[in-house]
């Protein structure tokens, strides 16, 4: 912990002294120094346990959960999500798919989980599961399917949502994430409309956030984007957030999965 505080202090100093040095460089250095201790490891271990543990009203594990590559296949699943699932008739991302499995296999109430605040109860378990599952695809390349018409429709909807200006400030996702080499304050902003930004940005979540000591899944990441955009509250696993996931994931095709990452 002392090491973390020291490194953070150094980042503070270095950004103050060299404003031109990109925040990404500093964070990359920081990440390098934390190689042996990304706190995401703890969530990863918890997620793996949760996958194998018999839980819920049906006292079953998630080991038969189909994340898109067949029942129980975890490795490589995340770099192909969101995708269309015939059993639910919907395009689902990792987190919403996990809730489906928790409902179908373990007997949990999916609607209740979706309504639970982030970081609480079964929601924190969904985050831990997503952390482990994404880690199992670490280093693999994004390769989302666009073969089903529903997947293509969600891409187009995601694109429309990405450029939609609204709220009190007329902000769209594109306001901050539609150009190369821009930053907000000192924070570099990935261009999410194409690679490398889309793969880097989308491929980093779930991530451990140093600033608040929390593990954030992609759903919470998008939720907080919309909060800062001054939009109303996007529901967990909503079609809007999944469509944005399809848009960014398809744009990030060929980009490397780095989750679970560590963020400022």
């Amino acid at each position, binding site marked *: 912990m002392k090491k973390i505080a020291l490194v953070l202090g150094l980042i503070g100093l270095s950004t103050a002294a060299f404003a031109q040095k990109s925040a990404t460089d500093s964070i990359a250095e920081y990440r390098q120094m934390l190689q042996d201790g990304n706190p995401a490891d703890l969530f990863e271990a918890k997620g793996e346990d949760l996958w194998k543990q018999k839980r819920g009203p049906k006292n079953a594990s998630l080991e038969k959960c189909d994340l898109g590559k067949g029942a129980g296949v975890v490795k490589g699943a995340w770099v192909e999500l969101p995708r269309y699932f015939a059993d639910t008739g919907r395009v689902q991302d990792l987190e919403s798919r996990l809730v489906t499995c928790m409902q179908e296999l373990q007997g949990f109430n999916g609607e209740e989980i979706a309504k639970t605040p982030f970081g609480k109860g079964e929601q924190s378990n969904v985050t831990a599961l997503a952390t482990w599952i994404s880690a199992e695809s670490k280093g693999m390349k994004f390769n989302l399917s666009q073969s*089903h018409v529903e997947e293509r429709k969600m891409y187009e*909807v995601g694109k*429309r949502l990405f*450029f939609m*200006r*609204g709220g009190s400030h007329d902000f769209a996702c594109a306001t901050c994430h539609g150009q190369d080499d821009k930053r907000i304050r000192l924070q570099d902003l990935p261009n999410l409309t194409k690679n490398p930004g889309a793969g880097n940005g989308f491929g980093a979540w779930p991530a451990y956030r140093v600033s608040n000591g929390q593990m954030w899944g992609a759903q919470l990441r998008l939720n907080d984007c919309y909060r800062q955009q*001054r939009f109303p*509250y996007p529901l967990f696993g*909503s079609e809007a957030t999944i469509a944005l996931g399809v848009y960014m994931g398809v744009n990030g095709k060929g980009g490397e999965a780095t989750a679970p990452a560590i963020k400022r």
Partner: protein
Amino acid sequence: MKRQYSIALSTAIVAMLTACAAPMPTSADLDKLTQDILGRSFRAEGQAKLDRLNPDEDNRLCAESDRTGVALDAKVSAEIEARNMKTIKAPADGKYLGDFKEGEKVAQSGAGKTWTDKADSVNGGNCYNCHQISKEELSYGTLGPSLYNYGKIRGVTNPNSAESKPIVEYTWGKIQNARAYNACSNMPRFGHKGVLTEAQIKNVMALLLDPASPVNK
């Protein structure tokens, strides 16, 4: 067993046929689908009510242009600018500049209007998120142009003078409603959308135009 197999097979055929037969909807249908999905995907929280999703014609036109990469027709741009120009009102007391120190506070603050902000809290201008302003603040964004030396570069030595009037009025209008000058500017419409009060805008004006402001040193 045989019956089960044939049901499974016919389900598979139906699924295949559906997948093949379902064509991509038209762009207009996708616009409609996006609106439907918006309606199902959000809930009101705190001061962030669902009306914030309501389509605004200026935003709809600009978003479509951003998405398709096709620049707006010059006539349409001019119409957007004219609509937004009508919303700009000169200060009631005729005074355009307030206190630059207070303006710096407005420029620094990114607070306000989110669902975690109290509705009666003081909003910030988020200025440093996108612009360099004073030389002392190193933590500035690059989404907008640098505003360092804003008044000095434009030759404003006395903001109350007749020579300074056009730039003072333009700056006032730009902060009130940036879309009056650039149809699809990314800058929030601080006055028009009620993000900043008239007094706050006067203070930001002073930060940019007062020769005594650190911005013009």
